[in-house]
């Protein structure tokens, strides 16, 4: 059940106390902003992994 990996998306995106910080900043962006921008591609990648694994399994059947 690879799709349990999608739980990580919710944890990463909703861990507000963890990312409600100004530091460390990156290219002038406070942590709060660059972290949430960064997890967009990270979470898309997680979904992609789930998609590829499930898709291969379906073809294998």
């Amino acid at each position, binding site marked *: 059940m690879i799709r349990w990996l999608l739980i990580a998306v919710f944890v990463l*995106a909703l861990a507000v106390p963890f990312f409600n910080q100004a530091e460390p900043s990156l290219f002038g962006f406070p942590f709060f902003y660059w972290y949430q921008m960064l997890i967009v591609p990270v979470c898309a990648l997680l979904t992609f992994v789930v998609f590829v694994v499930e898709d291969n399994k379906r073809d294998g059947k």
Partner: protein
Amino acid sequence: MTYPIATIIFLALIGFVILLGFSAARWNAGDMSQIEEWGLGGRRFGTLISWFLIGGDIYTAYTFIAIPALMFGAGAIGFFALPYTIVCYPILYVVFPKLWKVAHKYGYITGPEFVRGRYGNKYLGLAIGVTGIFATMPYIALQLIGMQTVIGALGIPGHIPLMLAFGVLAAFTYTSGLRAPAMIAIVKDLLIYITVIAAIVVIPAELGGFGAIFAKIPPAKLLLATPPAGSTGLYTGYATLALGSAMALFLYPHSTTAILSASGPRVIRRNAVFLPAYSFLLGMLALMGFMAVASGVSSMPQFAAGFKQYGPSFAVPALVLNSFPAWFAGVAFAAIAIGALVPAAIMAIASANIFTRDIYSQFVASSRPQTDTRVAKLFSIFMVVGALVFIMVIPSTYAVQLQLLGGMWIIQTFPAIVFSLFTRFFNGWALLVGWAIGIVSATWLVALNHFAGAIWAFHVFGLTVPSYIALATVVVNAVVAAVLSLPLNAMAPDRAGDETIAADYS
């Protein structure tokens, strides 16, 4: 102030997409007298078109104006749009390919139709359908307001341009159905991507870089306030706002319509992977609110009248006029205006599908293929004209408040639509009672907030937990539906009314 060059570019682009809208009927044409063709594009859209169509649905003119406006006015809380449009995609991935499969097999074109088929209960279908139409109406009105803001920013006064634009919208929706917004969405997204990329390259350079922009934001707006003792404060406020909005998103009729028009479940799953590209764009757009603060547009005399009339919603138009040459402002405003036409068309079509299949053919006259399409087409005009009248008669603050309520209402369809794709444990009548309690309690709490706030401070075991009202009330709704299902399944079982079979959900 008027901007002739920007206006000419703006009108030329709008004119182009209107032509596109009318010619869309011939694109991959099917038998347009069938409601599946008019209202669902024949369920033939592949990954790329679905990407544009669902993207056009979620990221609307209202989003482009309202999210930066929230950042501009309230600060960090406005960034909830990002986690919101991140967590909605796992939900899309897990839930909606299932809905597509069962809808395809039984010919359902709306969410409420599935619920009616699942429980054999047309009153439950009616409740879910009416919720969808009522939640959609203010949403269309807000698209009009978004369009009005950019038309106003170009210095064109009065309601006439807006009436023209939406008259044309009603006309091409009538003739082309869902193919029109699908085709226009491609142009809209290209323009939006160009605008946002230009904005993040040009504006920070003018203002001295992102560091300088963030440095100009007051500390209280830069981050969420640390919660006081005994409360989870804005931490839960922010997280529940994001999660609740994500749960509600694909239950809106226009989202369901875009999903069901895909050519298969695999297209939907692939889009859950590729749609987040828009979320990144939305994050950049949100930051335009901060760019507007840093650029000081709100204290420039040439924008004083605009801010007075439109409030923080004027932040993005003012920023665009201030930072770009006139011709590019025309492109950016056209992007926003077309960003209103696309979702407004899909919303009108989706509501029309619901009216036809879940209200008219169930309670007025029995369903026949030819009359179905005629009823749907006429109802789509009613929705557009209704929204137009709505914003002309009623102050725009009411549209915003009703949109807030709409979000609270639409999420109450979550147990009936989403849980029913995974289990037949629930009883149809129990879901109806849960729905009613959810609608009433959410409306009541929003009224106690004077229709201004989406968050309510709940007290749980001595701890204060501020939460998005929609999320808290849908939990109550689901618990009531589950608890009532036990006795009702014993006394008034409705499993025999289920026209679907277990294999449909594997």
